[in-house]
Protein backbone atom coordinates (compact mmCIF):
# COMPACT_ATOMS: atom_id res chain seq x y z
CA UNK A 1 0.00 0.00 0.00
CA UNK A 2 1.29 3.43 -0.91
CA UNK A 3 2.04 5.79 1.97
CA UNK A 4 -0.18 8.90 2.02
CA UNK A 5 1.49 12.06 0.79
CA UNK A 6 2.07 15.13 2.95
CA UNK A 7 -1.05 16.96 1.76
CA UNK A 8 -3.26 13.98 2.69
CA UNK A 9 -1.64 13.67 6.10
CA UNK A 10 -2.03 17.39 6.75
CA UNK A 11 -5.71 17.26 5.76
CA UNK A 12 -6.32 14.28 8.06
CA UNK A 13 -4.42 15.89 10.94
CA UNK A 14 -6.41 19.11 10.47
CA UNK A 15 -9.63 17.18 10.81
CA UNK A 16 -8.42 15.89 14.17
CA UNK A 17 -6.55 12.67 13.39
CA UNK A 18 -3.75 12.17 15.91
CA UNK A 19 -2.59 9.15 13.95
CA UNK A 20 -2.00 11.31 10.88
CA UNK A 21 0.02 13.80 12.90
CA UNK A 22 2.03 10.97 14.47
CA UNK A 23 2.91 9.85 10.95
CA UNK A 24 4.05 13.37 10.11
CA UNK A 25 6.29 13.26 13.20
CA UNK A 26 7.63 9.85 12.15
CA UNK A 27 8.34 11.09 8.65
CA UNK A 28 10.17 14.28 9.56
CA UNK A 29 11.62 13.80 13.03
CA UNK A 30 14.94 12.52 11.71
CA UNK A 31 15.72 15.34 9.22
CA UNK A 32 14.41 18.07 11.53
CA UNK A 33 16.40 16.80 14.52
CA UNK A 34 19.47 16.28 12.36
CA UNK A 35 19.23 19.85 11.09
CA UNK A 36 18.75 21.26 14.60
CA UNK A 37 21.61 19.20 16.03
CA UNK A 38 23.93 20.62 13.39
CA UNK A 39 22.66 24.13 13.96
CA UNK A 40 22.65 24.10 17.76
CA UNK A 41 25.66 21.87 18.41
CA UNK A 42 23.88 20.28 21.36
CA UNK A 43 21.81 17.12 20.90
CA UNK A 44 19.59 17.52 23.97
CA UNK A 45 18.76 21.15 23.16
CA UNK A 46 18.15 20.28 19.53
CA UNK A 47 15.71 17.50 20.41
CA UNK A 48 13.88 19.80 22.80
CA UNK A 49 13.54 22.46 20.10
CA UNK A 50 12.42 19.81 17.61
CA UNK A 51 9.72 18.66 20.03
CA UNK A 52 8.58 22.27 20.51
CA UNK A 53 8.58 22.77 16.75
CA UNK A 54 6.33 19.77 16.14
CA UNK A 55 3.92 20.82 18.89
CA UNK A 56 3.90 24.34 17.43
CA UNK A 57 3.21 22.87 13.99
CA UNK A 58 0.24 20.93 15.42
CA UNK A 59 -1.10 24.11 17.03
CA UNK A 60 -0.82 26.17 13.83
CA UNK A 61 -1.58 23.45 11.28
CA UNK A 62 -4.53 25.46 9.98
CA UNK A 63 -2.22 28.29 8.91
CA UNK A 64 -0.41 25.99 6.47
CA UNK A 65 -2.10 26.80 3.17
CA UNK A 66 -0.46 24.18 0.98
CA UNK A 67 -0.08 20.78 2.61
CA UNK A 68 2.51 19.80 0.02
CA UNK A 69 4.87 22.42 1.48
CA UNK A 70 4.81 20.75 4.88
CA UNK A 71 8.53 19.92 4.92
CA UNK A 72 9.82 23.44 4.35
CA UNK A 73 7.14 24.82 6.70
CA UNK A 74 8.31 22.48 9.47
CA UNK A 75 11.96 23.39 8.91
CA UNK A 76 11.10 27.10 8.94
CA UNK A 77 9.38 26.68 12.33
CA UNK A 78 12.36 24.72 13.63
CA UNK A 79 14.80 27.38 12.42
CA UNK A 80 12.81 30.22 13.99
CA UNK A 81 12.66 28.34 17.29
CA UNK A 82 16.39 27.63 17.15
CA UNK A 83 17.13 31.32 16.57
CA UNK A 84 14.83 32.43 19.39
CA UNK A 85 16.45 30.07 21.85
CA UNK A 86 20.02 30.64 20.72
CA UNK A 87 20.93 32.62 23.81
CA UNK A 88 19.69 30.11 26.38
CA UNK A 89 21.16 27.32 24.27
CA UNK A 90 24.58 28.91 24.53
CA UNK A 91 24.36 28.71 28.33
CA UNK A 92 23.25 25.08 28.24
CA UNK A 93 25.94 24.26 25.71
CA UNK A 94 28.60 25.41 28.13
CA UNK A 95 27.22 23.01 30.74
CA UNK A 96 26.90 20.21 28.19
CA UNK A 97 30.45 20.68 26.95
CA UNK A 98 31.70 20.47 30.53
CA UNK A 99 29.62 17.31 31.03
CA UNK A 100 30.83 15.78 27.78
CA UNK A 101 34.43 16.43 28.75
CA UNK A 102 33.91 14.15 31.75
CA UNK A 103 32.62 11.30 29.59
CA UNK A 104 35.06 8.59 28.37
CA UNK A 105 35.98 9.01 24.72
CA UNK A 106 34.22 6.65 22.35
CA UNK A 107 36.26 4.21 20.29
CA UNK A 108 33.74 4.27 17.46
CA UNK A 109 35.07 6.14 14.43
CA UNK A 110 31.49 7.15 13.50
CA UNK A 111 31.12 8.92 16.84
CA UNK A 112 34.45 10.65 16.46
CA UNK A 113 33.53 11.86 12.99
CA UNK A 114 30.20 13.19 14.23
CA UNK A 115 31.94 14.97 17.09
CA UNK A 116 34.54 16.45 14.77
CA UNK A 117 31.81 17.72 12.46
CA UNK A 118 29.87 19.15 15.39
CA UNK A 119 32.92 21.04 16.59
CA UNK A 120 33.77 22.22 13.08
CA UNK A 121 30.21 23.51 12.57
CA UNK A 122 30.52 25.36 15.86
CA UNK A 123 33.15 27.58 14.23
CA UNK A 124 30.67 28.85 11.64
CA UNK A 125 28.23 31.75 12.21
CA UNK A 126 24.64 30.52 12.90
CA UNK A 127 23.14 31.39 9.50
CA UNK A 128 26.10 29.90 7.64
CA UNK A 129 25.81 26.77 9.79
CA UNK A 130 22.10 26.49 8.99
CA UNK A 131 22.70 26.94 5.26
CA UNK A 132 25.43 24.29 5.33
CA UNK A 133 23.25 21.92 7.37
CA UNK A 134 20.40 22.23 4.90
CA UNK A 135 22.24 22.25 1.58
CA UNK A 136 25.31 20.09 2.22
CA UNK A 137 23.99 17.67 4.84
CA UNK A 138 20.29 17.66 3.97
CA UNK A 139 20.60 17.95 0.19
CA UNK A 140 18.26 20.94 -0.07
CA UNK A 141 18.39 23.21 -3.09
CA UNK A 142 19.70 26.73 -2.49
CA UNK A 143 16.31 28.29 -3.27
CA UNK A 144 14.41 25.97 -0.89
CA UNK A 145 16.96 26.68 1.84
CA UNK A 146 16.58 30.42 1.17
CA UNK A 147 12.82 30.06 1.76
CA UNK A 148 13.30 28.14 4.99
CA UNK A 149 15.94 30.48 6.38
CA UNK A 150 14.18 33.59 5.06
CA UNK A 151 17.40 34.80 3.42
CA UNK A 152 18.15 36.04 -0.11
CA UNK A 153 19.24 33.31 -2.52
CA UNK A 154 22.65 34.91 -3.08
CA UNK A 155 23.33 35.01 0.65
CA UNK A 156 22.53 31.31 0.99
CA UNK A 157 24.80 30.43 -1.94
CA UNK A 158 27.64 32.40 -0.45
CA UNK A 159 27.05 30.89 3.03
CA UNK A 160 27.16 27.37 1.59
CA UNK A 161 30.27 27.99 -0.45
CA UNK A 162 32.20 29.71 2.32
CA UNK A 163 30.97 27.25 4.93
CA UNK A 164 32.08 24.32 2.85
CA UNK A 165 35.57 25.73 2.33
CA UNK A 166 35.86 26.47 6.02
CA UNK A 167 34.68 23.02 7.09
CA UNK A 168 37.16 21.37 4.71
CA UNK A 169 39.95 23.42 6.23
CA UNK A 170 38.93 22.74 9.83
CA UNK A 171 38.43 19.00 9.28
CA UNK A 172 41.58 18.75 7.21
CA UNK A 173 39.74 17.14 4.31
CA UNK A 174 41.16 17.34 0.78
CA UNK A 175 38.73 18.68 -1.80
CA UNK A 176 39.62 15.96 -4.33
Amino acid at each position, binding site marked *: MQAPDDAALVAAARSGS*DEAFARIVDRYQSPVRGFLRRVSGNDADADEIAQDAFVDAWTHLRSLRDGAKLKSWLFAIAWRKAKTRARSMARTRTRETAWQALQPASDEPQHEMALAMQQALGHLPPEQRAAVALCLAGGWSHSDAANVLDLPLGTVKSHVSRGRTR*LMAILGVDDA
Partner: protein
Amino acid sequence: MREHDPLQDFFRAGDVPARDPGFRLAVMADIARRRFWRELAERLGQGLVVCLLVLIMAPIAGDVLETLVRGGESRFALVTLPLALGVGLIGHFWLNGRLRVRLPNLR
Protein backbone atom coordinates in the same frame (compact mmCIF):
# COMPACT_ATOMS: atom_id res chain seq x y z
CA MET B 1 31.96 16.05 -11.65
CA ARG B 2 32.97 15.02 -8.12
CA GLU B 3 32.31 11.32 -7.43
CA HIS B 4 32.37 11.42 -3.66
CA ASP B 5 32.00 14.35 -1.33
CA PRO B 6 34.32 13.77 1.67
CA LEU B 7 32.15 15.98 3.87
CA GLN B 8 29.23 13.58 3.41
CA ASP B 9 30.96 10.93 5.56
CA PHE B 10 31.18 13.42 8.41
CA PHE B 11 27.57 14.50 7.99
CA ARG B 12 26.31 10.93 7.74
CA ALA B 13 28.06 10.00 10.99
CA GLY B 14 25.84 12.48 12.84
CA ASP B 15 22.54 11.39 11.28
CA VAL B 16 19.55 10.78 13.55
CA PRO B 17 17.85 7.33 13.30
CA ALA B 18 15.00 7.34 10.79
CA ARG B 19 12.45 6.13 13.36
CA ASP B 20 12.43 7.04 17.01
CA PRO B 21 9.26 5.92 18.83
CA GLY B 22 10.42 7.68 22.00
CA PHE B 23 10.53 11.05 20.27
CA ARG B 24 7.12 10.52 18.67
CA LEU B 25 5.69 9.53 22.05
CA ALA B 26 7.12 12.66 23.68
CA VAL B 27 5.61 14.91 20.97
CA MET B 28 2.19 13.23 21.10
CA ALA B 29 2.15 13.35 24.92
CA ASP B 30 2.94 17.08 24.78
CA ILE B 31 0.12 17.57 22.26
CA ALA B 32 -2.32 15.62 24.48
CA ARG B 33 -1.30 17.77 27.44
CA ARG B 34 -1.88 20.99 25.48
CA ARG B 35 -5.21 19.76 24.19
CA PHE B 36 -6.31 18.91 27.74
CA TRP B 37 -5.44 22.38 29.08
CA ARG B 38 -7.01 24.08 26.07
CA GLU B 39 -10.27 22.15 26.48
CA LEU B 40 -10.24 22.76 30.21
CA ALA B 41 -9.85 26.51 29.60
CA GLU B 42 -12.69 26.42 27.06
CA ARG B 43 -15.01 24.58 29.46
CA LEU B 44 -14.14 26.96 32.28
CA GLY B 45 -14.90 29.89 29.99
CA GLN B 46 -18.24 28.40 29.01
CA GLY B 47 -19.07 27.69 32.66
CA LEU B 48 -18.21 31.27 33.56
CA VAL B 49 -20.52 32.61 30.82
CA VAL B 50 -23.38 30.38 32.06
CA CYS B 51 -22.82 31.55 35.65
CA LEU B 52 -22.87 35.20 34.53
CA LEU B 53 -26.08 34.64 32.55
CA VAL B 54 -27.72 32.98 35.54
CA LEU B 55 -26.67 35.87 37.77
CA ILE B 56 -28.07 38.42 35.31
CA MET B 57 -31.28 36.49 34.66
CA ALA B 58 -31.97 35.51 38.28
CA PRO B 59 -33.95 38.66 39.25
CA ILE B 60 -36.06 38.51 36.07
CA ALA B 61 -36.69 34.77 36.48
CA GLY B 62 -37.65 35.40 40.09
CA ASP B 63 -40.26 37.98 39.06
CA VAL B 64 -41.69 35.64 36.42
CA LEU B 65 -41.95 32.76 38.88
CA GLU B 66 -43.60 34.99 41.44
CA THR B 67 -46.20 36.11 38.89
CA LEU B 68 -46.87 32.51 37.91
CA VAL B 69 -47.31 31.41 41.51
CA ARG B 70 -49.53 34.34 42.42
CA GLY B 71 -51.58 34.05 39.26
CA GLY B 72 -53.15 37.05 37.61
CA GLU B 73 -53.97 38.30 34.17
CA SER B 74 -50.59 37.68 32.61
CA ARG B 75 -50.48 34.05 33.79
CA PHE B 76 -51.91 32.62 30.58
CA ALA B 77 -49.45 34.57 28.40
CA LEU B 78 -46.48 33.63 30.57
CA VAL B 79 -47.23 29.93 30.18
CA THR B 80 -48.18 30.04 26.51
CA LEU B 81 -45.24 32.07 25.26
CA PRO B 82 -42.45 29.73 26.50
CA LEU B 83 -44.46 26.74 25.31
CA ALA B 84 -44.82 28.25 21.85
CA LEU B 85 -41.15 29.13 21.80
CA GLY B 86 -40.20 25.56 22.78
CA VAL B 87 -42.41 24.02 20.12
CA GLY B 88 -41.05 26.46 17.56
CA LEU B 89 -37.43 25.58 18.41
CA ILE B 90 -38.11 21.82 18.25
CA GLY B 91 -39.78 22.31 14.88
CA HIS B 92 -36.87 24.40 13.63
CA PHE B 93 -34.26 21.77 14.60
CA TRP B 94 -36.40 18.96 13.21
CA LEU B 95 -36.76 20.69 9.85
CA ASN B 96 -33.00 21.34 9.70
CA GLY B 97 -32.29 17.67 10.35
CA ARG B 98 -30.56 18.37 13.65
CA LEU B 99 -33.29 16.61 15.60
CA ARG B 100 -34.17 13.03 14.69
CA VAL B 101 -37.00 11.07 16.21
CA ARG B 102 -36.84 7.31 15.90
CA LEU B 103 -40.36 5.99 15.69
CA PRO B 104 -41.02 2.31 16.49
CA ASN B 105 -41.53 0.05 13.51
CA LEU B 106 -45.16 -1.05 13.78
CA ARG B 107 -45.18 -3.32 10.72
